[in-house]
């Protein structure tokens, strides 16, 4: 396909329900990429499996739609082989925190320079509405007819505890804010994760746009908050209920994974010594 003008649009038929939070996410993402002035061919959008992951079909960049729960290792492999690429992983709360829950911990502690965007609609949408790891307690769904008895996990707390150097909570109701968060996350030098509170109009009748509208407040409005302070971040990230902070909760700098791999300081892996390698000395020892 042609390299388009940098608007990242394509003509593929969008299949999301009207009112779905994914519309806000895709608009914010395209806007962020425009702001950053990235070229489509330098970006890889890696997708999980779920409603949210359909996004890979609707943004005109390099894409790889992988497996449910596995977008994080996929994105890391892509990045390590060519660290000049801007690699963004997109998935849902089910894929990222249930099926592939293990991978977040390790990607975060590696501080590998990828961005993970989670459409956190607190439900398994594509499979038609089962409770997810972030569903609120008592959430009624097919497998939980009397409501969930499990407590939801706090994914950003988990990411923070695992050493993520950038964590942010977005809200689909604030598209401009979301776009700014994405731009910051993508340009952050290290592992970044944005958990987007996003409505699923079809299968989550509780956590609607309205529900969050009255509860969220922007962290940037809080002048006293120091997002580089880990202690404050741990406190802030746990806030939930009537007052939910959105925005960048923590940002710190630290050596990225790629920077600590000596071989990658010579250039990208794909650009290095293509052709036959002399293995004589390996045979001789």
């Amino acid at each position: 396909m042609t390299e388009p003008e940098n608007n990242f649009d394509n003509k593929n038929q969008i299949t999301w329900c009207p009112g779905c939070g994914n519309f806000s996410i895709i608009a914010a993402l395209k806007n962020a990429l425009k702001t950053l002035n990235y070229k489509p061919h330098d970006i890889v959008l890696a997708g999980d499996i779920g409603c949210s992951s359909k996004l890979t079909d609707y943004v005109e960049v390099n894409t790889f739609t992988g497996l449910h729960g596995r977008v994080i290792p996929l994105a890391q492999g892509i990045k390590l082989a060519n660290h000049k690429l801007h690699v963004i992983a997109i998935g849902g709360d089910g894929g990222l925190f249930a099926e592939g829950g293990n991978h977040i911990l390790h990607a975060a502690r590696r501080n590998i320079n990828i961005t993970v965007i989670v459409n956190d609609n607190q439900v398994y949408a594509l499979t038609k509405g089962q409770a997810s790891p972030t569903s609120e307690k008592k959430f009624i769904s097919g497998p939980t007819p009397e409501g969930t008895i499990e407590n939801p996990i706090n994914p950003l707390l988990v990411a923070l505890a695992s050493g993520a150097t950038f964590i942010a909570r977005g809200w689909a109701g604030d598209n401009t804010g979301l776009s700014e968060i994405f731009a910051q996350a993508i340009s952050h030098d290290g592992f970044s994760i944005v958990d987007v509170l996003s409505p699923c109009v079809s299968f989550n009748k509780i956590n609607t746009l309205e529900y969050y509208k009255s509860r969220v407040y922007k962290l940037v409005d809080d002048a006293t908050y120091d997002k580089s302070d880990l202690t404050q971040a741990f406190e802030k990230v746990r806030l939930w209920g009537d007052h939910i902070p959105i925005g960048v909760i923590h940002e710190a700098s630290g050596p990225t994974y790629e920077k600590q791999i000596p071989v990658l300081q010579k250039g990208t892996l794909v650009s290095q010594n293509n052709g036959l390698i002399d293995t004589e000395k390996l045979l001789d020892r």
Partner: protein
Amino acid sequence: MESQNIVVAIGGVAGAGIMESGHLLAKYALASGLFSFMASEYPSLIRGGHNFAMVHITENETNSLTQKIDILVALNEQTVKLHERELKEGSAIIYDSDIIELEKVDGITIQGVPLTTIAKESGGEIIRNTVAIGAAIGLLKGNFSILEETLKSTFEKKGQEVIDMNVRAALKGYRFTQGAGSSFDLSIKHKQIDSQRILLNGNDAICIGAIRSGLKFAAIYPMTPVTSILDYLAAEQNNFNLVVKEPEDEISAIIMTIGASYSGARSLTATSGGGFCLMTEGLGLAGMAEIPLVVVEGMRSGPSSAMPTKTEQSDLDFVLYAGHGEFPRIVLAPGDPTECIEATFNAFNLADKYQLPVIILTDKYLASSLYTINKPDMSEWKIDRGKITTSGNETYSRYELEEDGVSSRLLPGSPGAVTHADSYEHDALGRDSDDPTIRISMMEKRMKKINNLAKELPEPILYGEKDAEITIFGWGSNKSIILDALKLLDKEGIKANYLHLLYVMPFPAYEVAKIFDHTKAALIVENNYSGQMTRYIRSLTGRRITNKLLKFDGRPFLPEEIVKKVKSILNTPLKAQADIKEKND
């Protein structure tokens, strides 16, 4: 008596340097112009378990164990208890007389050596094994200067102090047994050195083949017997510009590998059966998204945890069919380190050329045994990256329907165009689709790769004379054991040949069926319970092999076992006939 068929076995607790000692003996043999083969047995414990290495030293090429022990080197009492029975008239035991008491046994040389005392005098108890090797070479009336050179090259990287200490220790051990005037009359000869010969195990061979082919990325979760692939490649990262990672699990390992391959790096993962269970979803992803992928599956005893450090060939069925849905794959089962190098090199070419997963199937025995091989001549080998491109234009589509089923693969990051990969069924552009027409054309596109592939793969090799009384069928690591059995049979005037199945999928059904037409009797040898290859051959050729030699006790075959089986078949005309009759089924 001078004999060039000597087996030295050394045993002790894990952590006592048993493998290193075996390796040292093998190196000594190589430096003496002899062949050697070393296999090791170790339990799944780091310390305290019984470790055991057997080194079979011969004048002519031998790459298997044999049913005897000439010298048993015992660093602990358990070694004596466990292996006494394998000794025969004329054998010797060298044991640490500081910690073990042994009574005289008729016909066996009991040679106590104060290994602990000597080791302590020479630099530390830790080098008891070096004293013991010195003593073994002494008892064999070997040449100390060769041993000294071997020690020097072995400990070169550890510095002069370590070298000196080991040479001192070995010399004391050597002198102790050399002057002992023992009744042991085996001695080790020295021959012209052949500088083309090297020692290599299967895992290292795979690493060499991979590096030679331009490997860039590997993600491997540790698991016996492939762990040394991870260690080897990691140690070579900076020398060969590789990135080698130990990810959080095998799922991540295979998915990262696929990601790196999508970006354009030749990428590898390795595991054993247990880890391969976790990898199967990735295998299907590579098949569907048409991503080149090379996976090493080093088999070990199964199912589940079974006997983790014991060899077996029981994952053939699994790797042939692993994954849901239908997609093309290649399965290679190299039989020795020479084949491991070449198969791995080819695996990367085939993966790139056909854009699909390639599995290299080995086992614990091949992975970790040390073989004497001739240095392969790789000068003619060429890298073929297939239809890979970094220049796209407006007409580029990733899954374009091509005559041969293989579409051009644009690497992400290439200016002017973008590329897609998709686990869903997709159209030529790589967009999700469940349109029936598209589905059919895409399935056919992927599956037809197999036909071209099958034409390209080499025919299976029939070792030995065409006109034999019996044909032995086998695959993977049984190759060298069967070849050694053929030599033993030949000595007894029995003409047997061996059909080695290296390219297992796609299967050379026509060629194998042709072999049956010339077969007077057939035997198949497999390290599993149910005869998985036997069934596979039957399903694809219609030929049934009724004479099966199967073993699933976690131990490799010995050539003698195969000889015995062949004789029993040939002595029972009805048995030998069974296969011939089957052809008319």
